[in-house]
């Protein structure tokens, strides 16, 4: 069987890639994709921990399913807001969305 640490390493790498995406991307949709990567890294972690530490309980698995659901809701709300803003400003580049500052 593949050791637990491999899963955790993959999850950590995925998380850091997502993190980097959030910090480096300027397009709101790309940032949202980075956040999705981070959430999926957490899912991987949860399922791996569940499988290796307490496979007789479903808590970790259920948590992962609920995270997927919440991520979907978040993406739906996020994209709706982006579209509403795009109609007004014609862009979702966060460098150009700068009415509020100071």
């Amino acid at each position, binding site marked *: 069987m593949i050791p637990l640490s491999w899963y955790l390493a993959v999850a950590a790498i995925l998380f850091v890639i997502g993190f980097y995406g959030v910090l480096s991307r300027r397009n709101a949709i790309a940032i949202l994709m980075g956040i999705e990567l981070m959430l999926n890294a957490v899912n991987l972690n*949860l399922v791996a921990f569940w499988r290796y530490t307490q496979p007789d309980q479903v808590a970790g698995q259920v948590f992962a399913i*609920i995270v997927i659901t919440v991520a979907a809701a978040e993406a739906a*709300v996020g994209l709706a807001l982006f579209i*509403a803003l795009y109609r007004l400003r014609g862009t979702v580049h966060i460098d150009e969305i700068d009415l509020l500052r100071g």
Partner: protein
Amino acid sequence: MTLQDFMPILPEMVLLATAVAVLMVDTFLGDKRWLTWVGLVGVLLAGAATYWLALQPPADFQDMAASDAYTAFFRLVILVVTGLGLLMAMNWLEAHGEQQGEYNALLLLAAIGMTLMAAATHMLTLFVALELFSLCLYILAGFERERASSGEAALKYLLLGAFSSALFLYGIALVYAATGALTFAGIAQKASLSPLFLAGVGLLIVGFGFKVAAVPFHMWTPDVYQGAPTPVTAYMSVATKAAAFAAFVRLFVGTLGVEKSAWVPALAALAVLTMVVGNLAALSQHSLKRMLAYSSIAHAGYVLVGLAAANTTGTAAVLFYLLVYAFMNLGAFAVVIALERQGEGDVTLSQMRGLARTHPLLAAAMAIFMFSLTGVPPFAGFFGKLYLFQAAVQANLTWLAVIGVISSAVSAYYYLNVLVQIYMADPETPPTLAWRPVLGLATLVAVVFVVGIGLFPDFWLQLALGGMRVILG
């Protein structure tokens, strides 16, 4: 599962039914103002359910959420804030022609998430509750779709909120890995200072830091508070704080209390940064909403002092302060709503000039809120700060209390500057007022509580102590 099992979350069920009812009634009702009253009846019923539950022995919902004196305290705070939030938005929605049904329903759904935050005793409940109220607030922040700054606020709030949720979630996963448990009780049993556990706790602090707007996780706050519609800003500035701190205290002081030494220094450092940066940044603001945003950051810092003290008096002071802060900040925002000009979504300091001459009552209300936010006796804000700093001294964190007192002295400058503008400056143009009876009612309630809690602080402190005894035994 029987119906009886749902009793511990009865107030949330009532709120859910109300939110659905508001959406249904919206479809066939001509006069949309009734929606506010439907929502308000729901909030009152949920309040009655909370009171009834408080008289019952403590119960829990499938090990997911607990209904005890602590939950009851926060349910009452959040329900009162939600009721006032509905009232404050009523005239505003009418004047701006926004959809009242969706607004009221979203506000009620956010309230469910917030009360569940206080009740949560399982990481899953905590996460879902956090996301529930966050998602509602993202939408509410962008509710004024015609105004670009509202959309911008929503975008920034969503991106940073989702980002912080991801960090928070990673923290939960690491704590789960270290302890093998997701219930708070299980985590408390297995808590140990392993690297995995500490990393998890660190990420949880970051996640909570974002939600309560602690420095250095506060970057979103000024922009979101300034850009969001003012009634939404008013609601989220107080309700989000109460909800996030409710879970913060239960999880850290209650569950992770045994490993106090690991997180108290981190929270003390956060408290110092938050108080100092919040107050200094507020000094140079011209927009009233932005100033109140930085002031709310500073207030999160004061509350963190009580959390860092991590004793019974400190955490009871946290509860007391959140209650007091809810009324004084909502009141201040109610005045901003009254002064706001159509389509601008913001009020500058110079717009307040000479308000006392044209509207003496409103000016007096604003004076009470500003004095209370500064911490001038006999208003409620004074006792809130007194209890917090007292607890810090008891916990051998005197230096923290000293920094708190100094930074709150700095805050007097910008709060009293508002009063100088109102009472001493001559108006350039007379302040125009969107003053309506319902908004006046909300302001009056806030004034009554700010003065009332200031005159009888002991009753409310005992209530907070009763809540804390559940957590700390």
